């Protein structure tokens, strides 16, 4: 993957106030540590040589989910033009983990950052036909303007941080 979508991805994230942390597989734990406000929940990460620290609860109860300050999941893709991440998966709990915590930390491989919606929908269509049941194109935190002014953090997270695995 050329550097170009990554640079665009970074500036798109910047525009929507989402922090980007660049790291590599071997430095992942130390890059993640400062992002983990306790209590933290997570869904197992699919990247080689990358795993979640023990402090992150991967099999939370309903109460633990609701109380979580941080929720860590992988993202299947990033979309450079929009600063979006695509949250895929299901049975491992990606959906509740990325929804209930105050802050969602999305971990993504640099090679999965796609330039635009066109490229993304080609991949998503392939995945869906291959059996991926769920894909959320998530752009920034949840938000609402229904209460008379724009508020970040409606039913979903108030904050989003993206961790980019540069060597994955």
């Amino acid at each position, binding site marked *: 993957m050329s550097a170009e979508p990554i640079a665009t991805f970074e500036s798109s994230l910047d525009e929507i106030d989402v922090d980007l942390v660049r790291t590599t597989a071997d430095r992942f734990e130390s890059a993640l540590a400062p992002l983990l406000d306790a209590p933290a929940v997570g869904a197992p990460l699919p990247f080689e040589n990358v795993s979640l620290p023990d402090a992150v609860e991967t099999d939370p109860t309903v109460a633990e989910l609701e109380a979580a300050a941080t929720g860590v999941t992988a993202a299947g893709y990033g979309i450079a033009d929009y600063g979006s991440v695509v949250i895929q998966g299901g049975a491992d709990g990606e959906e509740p983990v990325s929804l209930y915590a105050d802050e969602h930390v999305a971990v993504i491989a640099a090679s999965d950052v796609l330039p635009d919606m066109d490229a993304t929908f080609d991949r998503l269509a392939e995945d869906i036909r291959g059996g991926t049941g769920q894909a959320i194109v998530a752009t920034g935190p949840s938000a609402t303007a229904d209460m008379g002014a724009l508020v970040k953090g*409606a039913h*979903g*997270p108030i904050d989003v941080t993206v961790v980019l695995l540069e060597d994955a």
Partner: protein
Amino acid sequence: MSADNRRRKAEHIRHLLDTEGDSVHENTRVFNEGRYESTADLDDYEALKDEARAIKEDAIERLPELVDEVTEAIEDNGGTVYVADDAADANRYITEVVDGRNAVKSKSMTSEEIEVNDALEASGANVWETDLAEFVLQIADEAPSHIVAPAIHKSREEIAALFNEVFEPEEPLETAEELTRFAREYLGEKILDAEVGMTGANFVTADTGTLALVTSEGNARKCVQATDTHVAVAGVEKVVPSVEDLQPFVELIGRSGTGQDITSYVSLFTPPGDSPTFGGGDEGGPGDDRELGPGDDRDFHLVLIDNGRMEMREDDQLRETLYCIRCSACANSCANFQHVGGHAFGGETYSGGIATGWEAGVHGEDSAAEFNDLCTGCSRCVNQCPVKIDIPWINTVVRDRINRGKDGDLDFLVEGLTPDEEPGGVDPQKRLFGNFDTLAKLGSAFAPLSNWVAQAGPARSLMERTLGVDSRRELPRFERESLVDWFEARGPRVGPDEARRRVALYPDAYTNYVRTERGKAAVRVLEALDVRVDIPAAGESGRAPLSQGMVATAQSNAEAVYDALAPAVAAGRDVVVIEPSDLAMFNREYERLLEEDSYEALDGHSYEIMEYVYGLLENGADVDALPDGDGERVAYHSHCQQRTLDLEPYTTAVLEDAGFDVTTSDVECCGMAGSFGYKSEYYELSVDVGESLVDQFTTDDTADRTVVASGTSCLEQLDALLTRRPAHPVRLLDGR
């Protein structure tokens, strides 16, 4: 409409202007400006719209086949599809599936259309709206006023007062943040207790059975994840062929609606999903140590609603409505909607410009008739629609059908004045305005007597009572000598041999009988630039009857205009038009009213006057032949339809070229809109809309500027609301 009904309608509108107008205006303005900005960032906006349109055309064409395909796909995935004939059928099915269990819902206009909450509650189920705006309305027991932001009519203060009264929190809630946190927590418990999650769907893909949901709050995701049973309700028109087809819509829908490049979440669910569930139950709160349950035996039901849609599909005029993706751009860009909102500009369920099509199709013409007249045909929505629906045309067609559906009594006074092609039963007020040409001819023949009589008290109150012509409006004053007569006596002043170009100046009814001055100015300006002018005696363009929904009359007017202008066009002359709403007829509506060849010939040779002057100056004519503006400060209001045709820049450029200092308005419409502002039921709304324009022309920078406007209606509105007297811009270029 009877005088009483007019009065009731005017009162209703006045009440909404007072109570909801400010909130609606503020919010729609943000959406409207957001849309202009966000779509401007797209390099391929037009191409995306074309693509979106093509996908919808194809999908609706092949709808029965796609419904079969999606049914098969969803059944293969383990879900169920039910195609409901109508609301009752849908509600019966959904009530059975829900079976008295607790349900949480995300926002869905289609579920409003079938009023499923009422049906579920009657069956003993608890239903909670989790979209925050829908939650507010559920508590307030009010109807949506906007298809995307349903509580747009409520201010933060009103919501806070409502919450404090209903929930009596320990600390009164005040800020938007506090209100949001409170609602999230309150609804969070409802979600924990729920066993059924209900959603709508913005799109459903036939190939994979995927639902696309465009949301921002995250509640739709929670409704699906937390529960064991997912019921999705969608109009049958939401089916598109494939997942790839979603791409243009995903790029357009947020931008077109609230002006966001993309909403926080575009969820692609291919249900039944396998996310761990909360399994429902009555616990909840911090002590809830429930484990998450496996999500692998979730039930999924897609309920596709027909409710009139398959008939709309067979209807050549209403079919386009089914392409609508309910983005709300046609509401946000509509001046009338911005001021009065969806509680007036809406029917049983839907609101805004396209609501006429939806209401006529799903609830019937009576529901559409309630608000259809609020579309003035200004056309500002036309370029905003992501699927390129001719929304004003749908409004016109439905108005025509409503006219024809009534078998009213013919009013003798109007009957004599209205040699139209319409059947009896057309509202006398509509026939009066629809036959403006005849009225103007008579008015001119008997001027100034006709003006005195018309303006006199007794005549005005009779007109108000019988025809609903508001007596607070000044009536147009007819000139004794029409422009055509003046020119016939005067003759052209540029010889055929010395002429740079030859033009036929179209004498629209207003210019011909009422504002002859701008017609004379146009002749002199063109002649100053060495153009030989002729004025063929062509009649009214059809705009007046069309705006009243009198399509047959409009068509016969159009044909007559074409016959009068065709010889000039055939001789290679250009047709120059002063009144933008008539040029817009030539350019847009004539495509539907004339033979294709005739339409193309006329449209291809027609120009707006200032556009034409611009072209002359670009092609060698000398601006020094026109008077020097000498830095005169001018405030220019272009015309709604003129802006839709992208013709505003020519006027600005010509005036600047001639030495004027120009600033422009950016309101969508002046609010007068032909006959609209004369109608007593709409007079106050018309003035309210006009005040926004007046505000822009009374700032420190604009208050002392000379006011010019291109449209007759805009001039009338500005004349009524400003102390300065406005004029057509061509008059600034007239040497005498």
